[in-house]
């Protein structure tokens, strides 16, 4: 399998700030790759390093086997969908989409035909004459996507692609992006702080924290087997157990993750551990129940429709022993 993007010990420092710190990365051709992390974790800087807007302070970057350091953005066959879409306000939608072809001197008739095609691909056929200002947020996003894809890039970068959209539209676009990526076979790299988005769209996810990659893996690996406390907490807000508590709950003496949905409520004494209900948070599809156990509070997810306990009630908790996942200390 060809490697589309390769980072070796790549760092990007802004003065004393290590925005990206000795990152190794291998993104395969045709992969839908997610970069997940809180703001300031270095994921966007990594994306900008691939696009060429930033140059590494140290390390080596290759794009399809070619050294990328010192290559300006306009000579990279990589296109970006910007977080704010960055549509040109003085051009209509068709000219926005055809911009990349225009600067490469593609004849007018051909570039307009290809731009129309790209607009049809993102379901905006017939919108060419409008100004970006006359479009909704979701439509602008599609134009930005068409504008990038019309250049047939080897790698498409998406910076928080769905961040500005409302929930319903976001879910719809997630599916469309996934379908588009599969039909085009282009390598997609996207940045998000939304773990749900990363898990649902990506083939593989890299979790970033403080300029470093903490874990790379498939969404299942990341979710089921978080490598560190940070990953367990950031992805799916798991119960992160200190070593003593893990031991008390029947595990090894190590930090461990126990997913709230792996916990089942039982009658007091019937489960592996007993406690009292400390609080309830209604989430719609489920209720998140805090249970005070062994001096800590464990979150358990109770699917909707089950009778919910009341605060102060004594309950038991049971789980599959395999769900208790020990982690590295980091």
């Amino acid at each position: 399998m060809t490697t589309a993007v390769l980072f070796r010990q790549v760092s990007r420092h802004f003065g004393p700030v290590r925005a990206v710190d000795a990152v190794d990365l291998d993104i395969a051709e045709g992969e839908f790759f997610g970069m997940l992390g809180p703001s300031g974790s270095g994921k966007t800087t990594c994306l900008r390093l691939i696009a060429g807007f930033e140059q590494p302070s140290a390390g080596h970057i290759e794009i399809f086997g070619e050294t990328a350091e010192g290559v300006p953005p306009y000579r990279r066959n990589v296109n970006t969908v910007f977080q704010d879409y960055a549509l040109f306000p003085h051009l209509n939608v068709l000219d926005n989409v055809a911009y990349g072809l225009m600067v490469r001197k593609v004849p007018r008739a051909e570039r307009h035909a290809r731009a129309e095609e790209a607009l049809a691909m993102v379901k905006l056929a017939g919108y060419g004459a409008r100004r970006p200002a006359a479009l909704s947020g979701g439509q602008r996003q599609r134009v930005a996507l068409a504008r990038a894809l019309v250049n047939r890039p080897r790698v498409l970068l998406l910076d928080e692609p769905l961040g500005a959209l409302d929930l319903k539209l976001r879910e719809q676009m997630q599916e469309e992006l996934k379908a588009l990526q599969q039909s085009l076979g282009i390598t997609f790299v996207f940045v998000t702080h939304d773990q749900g988005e990363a898990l649902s769209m990506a083939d593989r996810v890299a979790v970033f924290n403080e300029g470093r990659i903490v874990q790379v893996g498939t969404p299942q690996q990341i979710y089921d087997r978080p490598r560190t406390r940070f990953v367990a907490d950031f992805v799916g807000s798991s119960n992160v157990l200190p070593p003593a508590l893990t031991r008390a709950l029947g595990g090894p003496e190590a930090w461990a993750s126990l997913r709230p949905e792996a916990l089942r409520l039982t009658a007091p004494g019937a489960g592996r551990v007993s406690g009292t209900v400390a609080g309830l948070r209604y989430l719609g599809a489920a209720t998140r129940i805090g249970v005070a156990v062994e001096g800590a509070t464990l979150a358990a997810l109770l699917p909707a429709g089950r009778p919910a306990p009341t605060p102060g009630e004594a309950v038991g908790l049971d789980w599959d022993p395999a769900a208790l996942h020990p982690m590295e200390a980091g």
Partner: protein
Amino acid sequence: MAAPAALAAPRPGLAARTADALWRRPGLTLFLMLTPPMLWLGIVYLGSLFALLLQSFFSIDEFSGLIVRELTLKTYGELLRPANFDIIIRTVTMAAAVTVAAAILAFPIAYFAARYARGRWKALFYLGVMLPLWSSYLVKVYAWKLILAKEGILTYILDGLGLMPVLELLLSVPVIGGTSLSVSYIGTFLVFLYVWLPFMILPMQAALERVPASLIEASGDLGATPGQALATVILPLALPGVVAGSIFTFSLTLGDYIIPQIVGSSRLFIGQAVYAHQGTAGNIPLAAAFTVVPIVIMGVYLWMAKRQGAFDAL
């Protein structure tokens, strides 16, 4: 214990009651705020402009030298006489040259200030651009006369650098040359350029500052070289600022009568012609007609700029 009132009682005093009353009538507030400036603008400014316009349709009796208060286009006809028309052509050419040169000179400065200068450098930029505006315009123009004079510092420096032949070659160019820079059109041009440059830099910088950095990145990302990004994204988006700046430099040059009086050949510019006709010559109608010329030119200029889409990005 009684809970505090959810709606507080009106506060005592005239000021508080006036504030309440104005809050309920936003239209009245707007009316009170706008009336004084509108009266000023309407009566003093537009009124005098209208009076001027009216004067330009009067004519002067050539024998008695008295103003004939009958509407006629005769005075405008006089503008087309070769002596007068030359003045118009000379002034418009100078204004256009000053505007183009100011735009070329201002762009890198404004671009640096908008995109790169931060904190201390930005303060230095504003100071550097504004400082010349704080000193008297006359002092600056006379200073330039001394700089450009035949025995002036510029000649001295060029002589020291062995560049006198270049200066002599420049001064030997017909029309724009002369015996020294201070009595040539080149000299007038340089002083105009210096004096009006801040009025080009500031609006340009404001316009460039409003171009989001992501748009410039996007153009590069889509394959545009820096030159293409400049031509297809930065300039079109900064155009309103360039137009605003050029309105300043163009109209200020069109109307100025002091700079060509002090520095340059003795040939008249529009401002000087107006000054001469309304003063010593007593030909108010012709002075008014001359004044209408810059107004018409600016109107045509703005109309063309709009047609070219200069304001589309606003």
